[in-house]
């Protein structure tokens, strides 16, 4: 079921994710994503007119934690799986645009 997600949408999402797919990948992903969405569309066959809208699947609210500190990771543990580190910092490719909000 092609057409749910077009190539332009794939390119937009790729840009937001800082990915650079080839034209071939763009076509492939738009087909695959369309199929996935169509599969989820089966859910709309369920009659939900009697079901109140919800923001959460669990019938639970108000789960809190007291404001008490735990022992955090040290830098070595935190950086153990980092692809690249610089001293006690994570090192990432140079960020060129402005600081995030």
């Amino acid at each position: 079921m092609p057409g749910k997600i077009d190539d332009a949408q794939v390119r937009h999402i790729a840009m937001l994710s800082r990915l650079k797919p080839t034209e071939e990948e763009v076509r492939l992903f738009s087909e695959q994503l369309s199929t996935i969405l169509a599969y989820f569309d089966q859910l709309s066959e369920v009659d939900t007119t009697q079901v109140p809208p919800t923001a959460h699947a669990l019938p639970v609210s108000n789960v809190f934690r007291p404001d008490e500190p735990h022992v955090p990771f040290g830098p070595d543990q935190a950086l153990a799986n980092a692809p690249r580190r610089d001293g006690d910092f994570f090192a990432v490719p140079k960020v060129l645009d402005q600081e995030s909000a």
Partner: protein
Amino acid sequence: MDRSKLKIRPIIGMEIHVQLATKTKLFCACPIEFGAPPNSRVCPVCLGMPGVLPVLNRTAYEHAVRTAIALKCEIARFTKWDRKSYYYPDLPKNYQISQYDLPLGFDGAFDVPVDDAAVSNAPADGAPADGEPEGGRPTDGGSASGRPESGVAAGLRTGRSPRKTSGTESTGYRRVGIIRAHLEEDAGKNLHEKPGITQVDLNRTGTPLLEIVTEPDLASADEAYNFCVELQRLVTYLGASEASMQKGQMRFEPNVNVAIEYDGREYRTPIAEVKNLNSFKAVRDAIRYEIERQVSEWMADPDYVINKRPKENRGWDDVRGVTEFQRGKEEAHDYRYFPDPDLVPVEVDDAWIESMKDSVGELPLERQARMSSEYGLSSADAATILADRATADLFEEAAEAGHPPTLGKQFISFWSAHANARNTTIAGLGIDAARLGELSKITADGLVNATAAAIIAEKMLSSSDTPTAIAQREGLIQTRDEGQVQAWVEEAFTKNEKAVQDALANPKKQQQARGFLTGQVMKISGGKADPKVVGKLIEEKLAKLSQDL
């Protein structure tokens, strides 16, 4: 086009992030510590590892709700958590947990003192408009300059009274609508100092922030400045935030545009949002710059109007004093919000909201008005005492047993000086209310004079004796026995013939000589003479001598 023919009306709204005063992060128990070594206050939750479970910090929620109540917001009975997706190295999950369509607070208002008689002249809801002029609030550039950036919060600590500055009497309050207040987590820090790489420190990731968004109700850079100052004062008073500028605990993003009236028509410039300002001064300077820039751009280009140009983000360059266009933000505004499945909603009932309202109590502006009328304090002095809630509480307790106006003078003079010297607040000095009250009372009753009171205060810091006991021990009880004071006056006159001659016969030195003689009598008395009695007896003595000449 003649600039002087334009009628310019700035339209300013604010977005503020306030770091809440919690020991731990919003959704994990990592301690929050400014200046800690990089990546030493992190755990799988705030590192964005897969499969972790965030759990909400109760204290953060309470601080946020209390602040929202103080901003007269409606408090949501039901709130949820949403993921705001964006891709940036300081946000390792690739989304920020925030509140999108159901913020915990909404539809509020905050009254800000402004220097404009045209706006409403009473603070809303409660504060009695007793007609007392606000003694020189920082309402204009001149009055506010020279203050430390964290001036209001640090008022008592620095010993400077931020409100006693100029003779400007502000007469009104600007009601600033609060659109919403919601909780969200902070991002980490990217450092760009090294060539070729960006260094990432995730200690700050997950720190609780309260985001407050106002209606565009502010009409000048100075009003925006006042708004920020008052907001800082409010959150520190509530104990909801330390609100330190140096630590970046308050960040401001003004939205600015200008309505220009020209030739019977009104034109509006496109809105500019100035990102991430971290001082009051930067807020004021950036807004002033924006107003001028937008008017100039419109004068040069008639298409520079709101419906022909997009909203733009701009960055403030503190060194050059200019704002600069920030490219590439428009397209990135595709946050794809959706409810966070890892976090359950928060539902509160009226009883809980009432208990939060009780814990908020009287707000600073209301309390300031009440305290100045109840205790005979100037508004400025009441504001200074109120900069710290525990100190204000201590004052009110001490005032019960003491002499309130004298107590007020002693609070803003030597008590705040002692607090300042010890880098604490007056409450932090640890002197109990009964002794504070007693010192003000024996001063007001004339048992000791003002100089002696300051000496007694110093002794009180290292002794738990009552002020009266200290005064007796140190021989500081004021003597009103005129016979005794007369003897001291005679002694001073005998020892200082030259000064007596000047006081009698040298018109140029008369005043100075009298002051000198008074000082000598006080010295001979060891500080015990009542200066009023001394002055009277010296006058009498000089009158008698001049008759005898």
